[in-house]
């Protein structure tokens, strides 16, 4: 059962692992920049789920000239959009991190908390 799952659905298993790693980094890591990295891993895991789900064995692009089976282009387009969103989020997060560093001189969460007291 488990071996079967690993052999046939390993993409999902990896995505789930990445999801966990990303979330763990966001919660556990004290460095704000590493939290941003965690956020990116978290999002990448979700992108992988979409892309994996869209995979069709021996599929062709959905062109009238091509032969069936076709691949739905929708998940890829969605993820393209989601990647753009992710990049914007990273940009805003880094801008905020720069601002925080300029104000407090640190990116360490526990030091920040002490400075904010």
């Amino acid at each position: 059962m488990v071996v079967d799952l690993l052999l046939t659905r390993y993409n999902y298993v990896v995505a789930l692992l990445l999801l966990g790693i990303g979330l763990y980094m966001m919660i556990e890591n004290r460095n704000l920049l590493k939290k941003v990295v965690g956020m990116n891993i978290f999002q990448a895991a979700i992108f992988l789920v979409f892309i994996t789900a869209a995979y069709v064995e021996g599929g062709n692009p959905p062109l009238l000239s091509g032969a069936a089976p076709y691949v739905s282009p929708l998940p890829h387009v969605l993820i393209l959009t989601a990647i753009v969103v992710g990049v914007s989020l990273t940009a805003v997060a880094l801008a905020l991190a720069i601002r925080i560093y300029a104000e407090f001189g640190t990116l360490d969460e526990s030091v920040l908390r002490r400075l904010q007291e």
Partner: protein
Amino acid sequence: MIADAPILVVIVPLVGAVVAMLLGLWFARAGWWVAATSAIAQVAVALVLAWRVVTAGAVSYATGGFDLPFGIELVVDGLSVPLVVLIAVVYAAVVGYARRAGPHATSFYALLSLLVGGLTGMVVTGDAFNLYVFLEISGLAAYALVASGDDPDAAVAGFKYLLVGTVGASLYLLGVGFLLIATGTLNMADLAARIAAVGYTSPLVVTAFGLVAVGLAVKTALFPVHTWQPEAYATAPVSVATIISALMSTVAAYALGRMVLSVFTVDFLAAVPMARTAVLTVAGVSILAGSVLAVLQTDVRRMLAYSSVSQFGMVVAGFVVATPAAVVGALVHLVGHAIMKGGLFATTGLVATRTEARTIEDYAGLHRRDPIAAGAFAVLALAMVGVPPAVGFVGKWYIVVGAVQAGSWAIAAVLLVSTVLTLAYFATIVERMYFAGVDDAAGQPTATAESTETPGAGEPTAAPDGSGTRGPSLGMIAVVVAATVAAVALGLGASAVQPLVESTLQGVLAG
């Protein structure tokens, strides 16, 4: 032109954001004028749209001329139109308010318009993925807005908000992914039909519901996942706190209601009782925990923030109870809470310009120093507690009636208990404002607020600026008074909304 109103409510603020940003490169003070123009246009388009929905029923709009359900559909019906108008009015009010209260940077007005565009998009879209995109647009604008003030703590709050908000939005995206895998469509109306075909108890559908509910609960700031919210509300510049407290959670809760009612439908809730129980439990815990945390606060803005956690528990409970009365109640409370909470935050800004007061203790004897602010705060606070005839009463009343009809006695009981708790934290402030210190008995708070001036709808009727005084502008006072009057007046008019909403709900709740 009028036929394009559903897309115009999204485009107008987005164009406003871009123009404000571009003009800001050359003219330092252009931002306000652009935002004011765009806000007035937005209110006009929203009203045209509302008039169409009231007279001719729900409007569906296929973006870019793609056939539905393949293209992105925009839907404006009885459920979404109150929100569209609310967002437009709050936009105009905040622009008027920010004229004096600041921040004055052009980027602030650009972000404000972007936020409004994103929020309006979330309300009018009929496409589950499009909702995610607008969720992130409004989120990105909000993260930057929170940090736009001078307070260094606001940058930290904005960063925290960004991380938590992103997790919420990403979980929602994952939920939409599960729905896409299960059904192969993203259009909400189409999804509803296809989910029924797939089977409500399918693991994919149930998982999707869990992810969507948790994701939007994070954005709504329900109890265990509310941690971003008090910091953000308390440290953001007051204009930002006003619009965020009035709209961010409101629109997220609306999105949750929309997904539950229009996509998963009542049949799903009936087929998977665990889902309803889980959401109701979270909502109930949120109502109680939010109230208790609010009672414990000493900072007024923090107290208001925790109060929102509690109020949104009620709204979400109303949506999930899903009887017509409960949904009407949730919608009324959604709009009512936005006006009351936005008004309360605007009032804290009014108080802060004159007295620098931030904590409950600082508010002692406020009615002598600032009778308008004290009166407005008292009326809005009592409206939030649910004193009839204010809008807070109407919303809660409908939710309780709906909960009783559905046999959800626990939720009805929690709501009643929370009313007492709400009274506990607001009564403390009202007591401080009117009865602290000297014992000259104050008059009825209502008399102060309602006798002052007509609302002016929060339009930028700002006092001539550059006069050098640090006091609040006419625009700020007008916004606060307008919110106060609206909180009472809407309570009287709320029952008029019922037929409009119920005719929409016939489609949503049928079956």
